[in-house]
């Protein structure tokens, strides 16, 4: 079983796909809701304290906005732990999204720098692309150590 970082980290579909193929998804475990009644689209389930942006200094310099550093305090350790990653770009908001585009850039860069196997896919816009999308994810996950069939 490999630890697979998913991006967007809030995507329940990606999280489910990774788990179905016998791996451990590393993400936010947050669903994007139809109605947004919280401060942000990816509001954390726990109260973040001013300590998190300070912990985030490990991943981003002090001149980087506090919101980016606070997010990196959550995602940075997951990226360090990850053995593989699936990145879906241009995703629809409902598929899963992160609130801050600057954090996105840093997360994707950190993943690409880490040297782990990465599958990068564009979000499918029709059924045919959707089938190819799932097939590509399946093939990637099956190729990881101890990957299994769904």
């Amino acid at each position, binding site marked *: 079983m490999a630890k697979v970082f998913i991006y967007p980290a809030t995507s329940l579909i990606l999280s489910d796909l990774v788990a179905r193929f016998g791996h451990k998804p590393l993400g936010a475990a947050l669903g994007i809701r139809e*109605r947004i009644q919280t401060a942000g*689209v990816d509001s954390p389930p726990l109260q*973040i304290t001013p300590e*998190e942006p300070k912990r985030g200094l490990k991943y981003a310099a002090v001149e980087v906005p506090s*919101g980016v550093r*606070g997010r990196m305090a959550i995602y940075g350790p997951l990226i360090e732990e990850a053995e593989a990653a699936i990145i879906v770009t241009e995703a629809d*908001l409902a598929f899963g999204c*992160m609130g*801050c*585009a600057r954090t996105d850039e840093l997360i994707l860069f950190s993943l690409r720098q880490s040297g782990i196997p990465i599958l990068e896919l564009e979000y499918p816009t029709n059924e045919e692309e959707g089938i190819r999308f799932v097939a590509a994810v399946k093939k990637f996950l099956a190729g990881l150590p101890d990957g299994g069939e769904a």
Partner: protein
Amino acid sequence: MKKVRIAQLSCGAEYSGVQKEIYEAAESVGAEVFFPDIALADVERAVKKFGLDVKSADLKLMIARALALVEGKVEADGVFIGTCFRCAEAAIVRNELRRYIPENSKLSVVSYSFTERTTAGTLLTRMEALTTIARRRALLAREEQTGITMGVDSGSSTTKAVVMKDNEIVGTGWHPTTEVIKSAESAVSDALEMAGLAREDIQAIGTTGYGRFLIGKHLGAELIQEELTVNSKGAVYLAGHQRGAATVIDIGGMDNKAISVIDGIPGTFTMGGICAGASGRFLEMTAKRLGVDITELGPLAMKGMGKNVPMNSYCIVFGTQSLVNALAAGSSPADVAAAACHSVAEQVFEQQLQEVDIKEPVIMVGGTSLIEGLVYAMGQLLQTEVVVPPNSQYIGAVGSALLASGFIKGE
């Protein structure tokens, strides 16, 4: 009392760890913060309609929520806009929404760029102003002082007191703030003596400034009010411009206020207080270094040419060092005074005045408005004539006395 509902439009507040501070600041002034309920499906539509194509999903959400407020789909009494300090993308959205909301609705807006160090105390005055505007619109509409009232402004540098009677200032007092209550007592005694009145003649008291709660309790004030709304009111009252648009600038000892006012009520405002180099304190230090009284600094600056003195830093420490170096290199005290005034004005201009829509007349108030070199420098930067009304140094006290008359029994 019904809570004032403040809609929060923000990006990064939770991950910066300051959401709790925002809640606390609102709670302490009897307000509640809420997030306008938006359907995810409406977010992209709203962003397209607004026309600002940003990448961050939370900024898109801010835009969608702003549109929902303006279109009346969500009701609120005021709006708090907050984004991370140093985020350029967020700054653009924050700026545009701060402009868009008041222009298209009756909602007042306060905005702030936070770091993880932002505390409820930092946000308190802004939240209080927002709450006051929503809750006390009728009181803020008051244009005339009636009866006998007193206003006390307990500032970080000086404490001012004013006694007003039948729409006239009849007594004033001004003391450096040392021990807050003692300084207030001295200013009050002087104002009463000048007015020829006794404490029992006063029908209502209003307090403002940093020490407003302490002296308000001590004096048994009917009105304890933050300085943003009070100064706006006082400025347009003293300038005789109570109707229409105006901009109020108050460069204080510890913080600066820039307020865009409509009919005497703040629309958008900023409050800066991080850097001493942009405060009256820098001018005090300059005066001390030049060996002149602070009252002499303004006329001295008017005789000088600031451009003759190289100023390499806005910082109060390094800025003062530049002035010392200039004096050592043979610059005249007049040039140095002018350079100091220009430095403070330029920093306020660059860091704060960009955040409010400058509408004429521009009214400068507070103790620093008496430093004519500073007023001149601000006028040069804004390319407009800056109005300094009579008694501008008593602005907070006058505004408090004016508003306090709304609390006289029978009013």
